[in-house]
């Protein structure tokens, strides 16, 4: 192990600094993620006509989780602040959009943008006291915020419909925007996922991304090096909130009727975390791989083992977390580099 331990989840793609020559290798390093992203976008578009509506909806949900997991990774993976209340922004985006469309008759696109802004501001506000906490405390505080928000929404029935839910009108004279249809939502989620991954790529290879990683490794040292940790953390938190809010907004429109205990379900946050951790936190590819595999696995289990699928999912999570605690992409990267593929090595590394 070298002296400079890059910790877990460090992608070594870096910007070319003014003093270093722009080599072909560094150029390749910089453009590869974008090339792959563009390829992914084309693949997604091309795949659409081949899918039956049910599969299309499944892929839309997978894309939604890719976006959510990647957004969570910004604060949880890069900065190391495990937010367990991320669903608060998801629900905030969803309910914000629903309220704007129902009470203010706004068009969906305007409402989505506005919801993202609202989520951004809310996270910045809430982050001020909470980002001072560390570790489990931060996780629980954010969880408290999410649950509290759900209770607030449930207890404002005149505004939000309370426990009975709120319906966005999607046909007839009341509807500000027509329902996008399966195809429309597929494309919406595809573009959202691509946008979020693009943000992640930019963050990963920028100074901001390095700042976040520095905060994760040793916050005091980072501050000593002149990084404005409060600004970096808050921007990461609020940024991931805005992206999550936009996704939540799209989801609410897709579902038409939303309920507080589903829009603010803690299980959504946990799924996000599972996807990022299993895929490899702190990388760009990790959340994508994690989201795709966990979403498909969960769906497959639900269809084929209807009675016991949650039980099996729990078991799978346990096994995966024990064998691959650093996540799949990091494991692959380390294994390829060190030519050591044993999963039990992994276990030995982290156990007591």
């Amino acid at each position, binding site marked *: 192990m070298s002296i400079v331990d890059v910790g877990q989840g460090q992608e070594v793609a870096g910007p070319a600094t003014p003093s270093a020559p722009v080599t072909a290798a560094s150029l390749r390093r910089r453009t590869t993620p974008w090339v792959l992203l563009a*390829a992914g976008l084309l693949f997604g578009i091309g795949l659409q006509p081949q899918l*039956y509506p049910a599969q299309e*909806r499944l892929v839309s949900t997978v894309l939604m989780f890719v976006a959510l997991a990647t957004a969570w990774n910004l604060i949880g993976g890069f900065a190391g602040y495990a937010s367990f209340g991320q669903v608060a922004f998801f629900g905030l985006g969803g309910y914000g959009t629903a309220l704007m469309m129902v009470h203010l008759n706004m068009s969906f696109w305007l409402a989505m943008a506005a919801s993202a802004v609202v989520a951004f501001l809310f996270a910045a506000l809430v982050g001020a006291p909470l980002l001072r906490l560390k570790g489990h405390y931060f996780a629980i505080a954010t969880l408290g915020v999410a649950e509290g928000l759900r209770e607030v929404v449930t207890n404002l029935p005149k505004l939000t419909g309370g426990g009975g839910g709120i319906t966005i009108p999607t046909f007839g004279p009341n509807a500000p925007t027509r329902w996008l249809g399966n195809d429309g939502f597929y494309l919406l989620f595809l573009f959202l996922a691509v946008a979020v991954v693009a943000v992640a790529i930019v963050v990963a290879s920028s100074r901001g991304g390095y700042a976040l990683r520095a905060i994760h490794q040793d916050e005091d040292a980072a501050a000593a090096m002149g990084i404005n940790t409060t600004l970096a953390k808050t921007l990461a938190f609020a940024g991931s909130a805005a992206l999550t809010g936009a996704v939540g907004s799209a989801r609410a429109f897709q*579902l038409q009727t939303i309920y507080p205990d*589903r829009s603010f379900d803690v299980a959504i946050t946990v799924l996000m975390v599972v996807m990022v951790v299993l895929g490899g936190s702190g990388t760009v590819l990790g959340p994508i791989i994690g989201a795709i595999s966990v979403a498909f696995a969960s769906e497959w289990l639900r269809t084929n083992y*209807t009675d016991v699928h949650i039980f099996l999912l729990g078991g799978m999570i346990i096994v995966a977390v024990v064998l691959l605690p650093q996540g799949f992409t990091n494991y692959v990267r380390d294994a390829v580099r060190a030519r050591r593929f044993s999963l039990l090595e992994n276990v030995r590394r982290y156990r007591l």
Partner: protein
Amino acid sequence: MSNRAFAGAAVVALLLVTTACGSKQAPEAGGDSGRLVLGASLSLTGATAKEGILTREGYEVCTKVVNDKGGVAAGGTKYQLEIRFQDDTSKADVSAQLVDQYNDQGVKLILGPYGSGPTDAVAAVVERNGQVMADSAGADNKIFAKGYRRSFAVLSPATSYVASIVQAINDLATPKPKTFAFISADDGFSKTATQGGISKAKELGFEVIAEEYVPNQTTDVSSALTKIKPKNPDVILGSVHLSEGIAIVKQSKELGVRPTGGFGETVAPPIPDFVKTLAGSAEGVLGSTQWTPKTAGSERFFGSATDYAATFKTQFGGRDPVYHNAEATAACLALVLAVEKAGSTDPDKVRDALAALDTPSFFGPIKFTPEGMNVTKQMAVIQIQNGKAVPVWPADSAEAPLKWPATA
């Protein structure tokens, strides 16, 4: 990044793009010859797993009885009834997605999920897809105030759950109580039921002295009871589910809240767990139910309510049916009768036939308002007597007189 890795990435990108330009296989075949397929998305796991499973049992009874009697006769063909089940894990949006999936598989006739929340979500999807739903367990009137034309509820709407208990007390209780206190869970269905009960109570000249709300599915209603206690109500009515219902009776005893007229609760008392957990304290509690084995009415598939009870008992190992089973079977029956009446499985024709349906059945009369609710059918009121849920109202299906006052 090494040359090799870059080359690898480029190959992957190329592969992705070329795969995307393939062609789609032929779409799934639509109808199955000789089989009438109905789709049901139920809560087989999760918070309402128990009720979801009871609903599934009701649907299964329908399949067996209808197929044993030769199947569904429509347009000159005899169809074997087949119901597909999927688990919505007690989540409304999953229910909606599953119904969408059924639409892709060509399944246009849908049997309702358990609960008003999922039913509401599914109704929106059914409307959009041109499917048809027979609602077995979503009673909230609000579902039917949205202008949906393709969902039909066989069960009595939410407003009658508490109102029927109030009516029963009005008709049968001597001396008549004067004051009511209402405790309600805060989900849409319970709140609608509470409002229905309050208007009925005021209409009949009772005084409503308290209206308290508790969190849905809670096991602690002490704060509501503590607020109600000093007001000394004659009767406490709970528009709640099982866990709150049990808590009301239990904690009333702990806190010394003793309404002279006892308790009335909507959904909880008819469920066997209520008596099992409360033992003696459950005596005298009134409950409302969509169906009892004494409900009047019969038709050719299931006979009368007593016949249905016997059939259920045989199919499920000697266990008596509860109303969740019956309402599920009734919904399936409605769809079957509509298909027969329409003479086809085309969703639009079935929809029209359902809207025009007017038939007695083991579940009571099945007839829908233009919005899709079944207001012709009355709910029954039961009272726990000697550990059993005994129907006491309406008079034509009562098994025993009302014991009043309930708490001696």
